[in-house]
Structure formats: structure tokens, C-alpha cells
């Protein structure tokens, strides 16, 4: 019997400071054992428990794509005990990873479809995984048009700046970064994410929307998507709730009968409409 509580041993290989506030860092982790690397098969949208012995665990979305072989990326905001300890860690530190956990974005449904990605702030991490995955030459032809809107308060708060530059230049994706208010030196779009989506008017036909962001962004984006003709089952969200076990046993991340850890974190808006808003 595989013990789902035992973390796989990894080492921090690299740490990148992602934003000007310096409270989001991306950690590149490599497995210490080859068999762990081979057994960790995942898809974009899944998460893992980052495990620091003596401090605890924290559930974090996987920011790398399975097409990036040999390592895992996690972008972590410094918030609580575990993430603070992680932020104080340097390359070379040994730690644990438990996963992959949860269900990914609905890749079987996404195949053959256009994809609209809508994201704001720090919640972009698993969508970085999704974009990297769909843009991989082996995958790109499996999907139709790919459109992405990604917003942050100001330019310095956009994550993955190098990748953004590549995506903006790519013909395989229509990528629009936006910031809330004009800032010197910014030549891109200015405006809140829901407004930019409205302006771009992406077609809802044969399209699934992946929406990850702060609650306020989601609240104002949903009416825009519905107006564009998106059905609730085609609007895909990713939730977060406090977790411990990550495998549907400890009882704290449920929304109605569904556990965010095991049944999610990815849900369609249609699934969530019937449940208490406990997230």
C-alpha cells in the first residue's frame, strides 16, 4: 500500500524572485530519487503539498508543465508559517513534496477546443503550466485558438516576465497582459481584467474558459463571459481552501459534498452553482 502521507524527497535547485514586492518566489525542485521523478506524473491544474519537516505542509499549485522534464516549479507567496520558512530557504535545501494531488484542468474536454485563459494576480501559476503545456510543439495542434488575458496591479507584479515576452511575440497564442493603472514605462494594455476581456470579445463558440484569480476578479469576469455566450459548464475555475491531508480525508476543504483537494481544485461554474459558497 502506497503511503499518501509520506513526502518524496526533493532539493531546491533554484529560487527566482518574481515580483517587486518580493513576496512571490518560484522554487525549482528536483527529485533526489529517479523512481520518484518517474512516478510523479501530472497534468496542468494539479497541486502538491510542499513539506518542510519541523514546520509543516502547504498546498501549492504546480507551475511547471509536464513537458518541462526533470524538475518541478512552484510559485509561492509568503503568507503563513510554511511559506515564510520556504522564502527563507536557499538552493541546496532538502525538503519534501507530496503529490501530484487533485484533478487537473479538463484536458479531455479541452482537446479540439479553443481555450480562453483569464487570470489575475498570483493565481496565474497553474495557468503558466497550462500555457506551457498547450504551446509545446507536440501539443499545440491538439487545440484551436488560444487567447489569454493576464492582469496585475502594476507591471512589477506580473509573474514570469520572460515567458510573457515570449508569449506576446508568439503566433501560437494571443496573449494580453494588462495592469490596473497606467505606470511610467508600461506600453501595454491598461484596465481591469473583466473589462479587457469584454473589449477583446473572444468568441464562446467551441471554447472553454479557464479562469483563475482573486474572488473580486472572478465575480466581475463571470457576467462578462456569460454575456459573450459562455455556458456555466464551459467556465472552469480553480478553488483553494485550507487543507491538511490533500486526499479527501481530513475534512476541512469541502464545499458541500465535494472536497477541493480530491474532487477539485478544478470545478466548472455549473458544478459550483448548486453548492454553499464556502470557499
Amino acid at each position, binding site marked *: *500500500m*502506497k*503511503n*499518501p*502521507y*509520506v*513526502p518524496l*524527497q526533493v532539493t531546491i535547485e533554484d529560487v527566482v524572485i518574481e515580483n517587486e514586492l518580493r513576496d512571490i518566489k518560484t522554487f525549482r525542485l528536483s527529485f533526489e530519487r529517479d523512481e520518484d521523478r518517474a512516478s510523479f506524473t501530472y497534468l496542468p491544474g494539479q497541486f502538491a503539498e510542499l513539506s*518542510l*519537516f*519541523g*514546520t*509543516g*505542509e*502547504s498546498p501549492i499549485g504546480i507551475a511547471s508543465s509536464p513537458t518541462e522534464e526533470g524538475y518541478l516549479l512552484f510559485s509561492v507567496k509568503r*503568507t*503563513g508559517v510554511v*511559506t515564510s520558512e520556504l522564502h527563507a530557504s536557499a538552493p541546496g*535545501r*532538502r*525538503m*519534501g513534496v507530496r503529490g501530484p494531488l487533485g484533478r487537473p484542468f479538463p484536458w479531455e474536454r479541452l482537446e479540439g477546443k479553443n481555450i480562453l485563459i483569464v487570470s489575475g494576480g498570483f493565481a496565474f501559476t497553474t495557468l503558466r503550466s497550462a500555457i506551457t503545456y498547450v504551446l509545446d510543439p507536440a501539443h499545440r495542434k491538439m487545440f484551436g485558438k488560444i487567447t489569454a488575458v493576464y492582469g496585475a496591479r502594476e507591471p512589477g507584479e506580473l509573474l514570469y516576465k520572460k515567458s510573457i515576452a515570449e508569449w506576446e511575440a508568439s503566433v501560437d497564442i494571443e496573449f494580453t497582459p494588462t495592469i490596473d493603472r497606467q505606470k511610467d514605462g508600461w506600453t501595454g494594455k491598461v484596465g481591469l481584467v473583466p473589462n479587457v476581456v469584454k473589449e477583446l470579445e473572444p468568441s464562446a463558440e467551441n471554447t472553454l474558459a479557464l479562469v483563475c484569480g482573486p474572488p473580486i476578479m472572478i465575480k466581475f469576469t463571470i457576467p462578462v463571459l456569460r454575456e459573450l455566450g459562455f455556458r456555466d459548464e464551459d467556465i472552469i475555475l480553480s478553488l*483553494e*481552501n*485550507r487543507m*491538511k*491531508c490533500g*486526499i*479527501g*480525508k*481530513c*475534512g*476541512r*476543504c*469541502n*464545499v*458541500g*459534498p465535494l*472536497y477541493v483537494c*480530491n474532487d477539485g481544485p478544478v470545478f466548472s461554474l455549473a458544478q459550483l452553482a448548486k453548492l*454553499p*459558497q*464556502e*470557499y
Partner: protein
Amino acid sequence: MDKALLQKKDLDALLAAIRMRAPVYAPARDGGDGGTVFRPVESAADVCLGQVNTRLSVKGLFFPQRESLMKFSGSALSEVTLPTDSLVVFGVRPCDARSLTWLDTVFGGGGHEDPYFQERRKSAVVIAMACDQPGASCFCTSVGGSPYGSDGADMLVSQAGADGALLFEAASEKGRAFLEEHAGLFAPANAQAREAREARASAAAKKMEALDLTGLKEKLDAALDSPLWDALTKTCLGCGVCTYLCPSCHCFDISDEKSGADGVRVRSWDSCQYARFTLHASGHNPRPLKKARMRQRVMHKFSYAQETAGTAFCSGCGRCVRACPVNLDIRGILTAFKDLP
């Protein structure tokens, strides 16, 4: 052999025979106030079978209040601490035994087996003791159980008659094997003992008032925003005793304890009745109010579990009713929602 009689005087011999292989846990005195808990017993004299139920449910034998999951040294795992001991539990009430089937669903299901629970459960023999004197707070018959039920048990034991004999009925393969193994101590169950058992079973069930909870789930699902949640839980102190004593509540916390570089990762019972249970690191709390937390407790048992496991997660053991410091009675809550138009 499915049914067999044991003379009460031979209970000691049976316990001694079992103890050759595994420790026997049974209801035994806990302090001076007459309460009982499951503890290792050495002889029949230690076993208390007259009480309505043990203070703590049987769940702690399989899912301890606190257990070590693993040990670490520095930043590396040093030892996974899986349980290895087997046990025999004697004198479990049918309500508690039935709850074990739901813990089986939780810890064995969802695509992830919990090895700590499963190891203990698979090696254990659960011997239930039928209930002839249900307490005022018992309501197993309202939630699909029975004082002579054997769900979740390997064996059901009942008082076979005035002569003090005990009737053992196997309820699983493990139970049958147990009776075979100790066949020398048992006599075949006669027709008289079987008839007496039926009469006692129906008499025991009649001692409880059965609530009609038909359609409760639909009523609850339609009443998520009902002001009743607030009204009915105003007096709740949020102490969580209902969840700790509940034989089917399974929420837990995982935390690290260390001294120097070495330490243990510990799992301990937790409760959905605590405000910090769902508190995000960001400060956001999806269930900030008492009424939302009580709604979670009731909905989990009587609605969500129906959807995920096809049954309500309440065995009617009545511990939450007996122990509540402000006399909140879950039967009253259920009836109030059931009676909504």
C-alpha cells in the same frame, strides 16, 4: 459455525484464549464517575457491559486521538511509523460498530488508502454487544440502525436468557473463523436461545422513539440559507465535544513537533466546529460564523454523506446529545428541518 452459546463463567477462559494472540479491548472503568472507555482488559471482571455506552466511541482504537505518522531528522524523513499490532475489541455497541463502516469508506476510499487506519482495521476482530437498555438519548432506530445490528462487526453477542449464557453470532468471515478457533468453549445455539434473542431484539428497539426522518436530505438541501441555522445554534459554545465523541466524525489536523533537529509529524483529531479549522493563511475564512459551522456538521452527516457514501454518517449513539454543555439536541435540529414546509 454461525451461532454458538458461551456460558458466562467461560468468558474469562475465552478472553484468556484470545489474549494469547492479541490484546483484548473492552469497556472498562475510567475514573470514579462510572464512565467507561475501551481499554485493554485482563479478565471478565474488568469488562463493563451494563452501561448505555462508553464515554469515548470505538473510533479511537482505529483512528487514535493523536498518532505519529512519521519521524524526521533535520530536513529528511527518518522513519514511517505504521501500526503493526492487532487487536480484538469486545463489547462494542452496534451503533459504534456501524460507524466503523463509514470510517472504512472515508479512510479506504477516494482513490487514496490511509495505511494507518487500514492496518489497524484489517487485523482487528470487532465483537459487538447487543443493546437491551438503550438510553434516553439513543436514537439508532431513527437513522437506520438497530440495537441488535451487526453492521461493521465481525460478531454480535447478546444475552441468551436468564441462565446467563451469551449468544455469539458471526457477522463476517472473520467472525466465523473466530468461532471455529474457539469452538471448544462454545455449545451449539439451541432453538430456545434463538427465540429469546428475537424477543429481546424487538423489545429493545421498542424502547426508543423512532423519528420519521424521511425526506430530511431534500429539506436540508433546500434550507441552506434558512434562518433556522442561526436560531437553533445560538446557544452553541463551539466547544466541539459533539465531534470529538462522535463515532463517525473523522476530521483531523497534521502538525509537526520537534525538539532540536528531530521530530514527529503528528495527526490529531480536529473539529469543524472551530473557527480556525477552515481559516486561510490570508485571513479569509469560508465558514466564519457558528451557524455555518453547525450547518457543516449537520449537512456533512445528513446530506453530503448521502451523496458521497449513499448513507447518513450518524449512528444515533446519542453521545453528542448527552455531552453537550448547553443541551443542544441533534434530534431537535433534524426534526425542525424535517418539519419545514
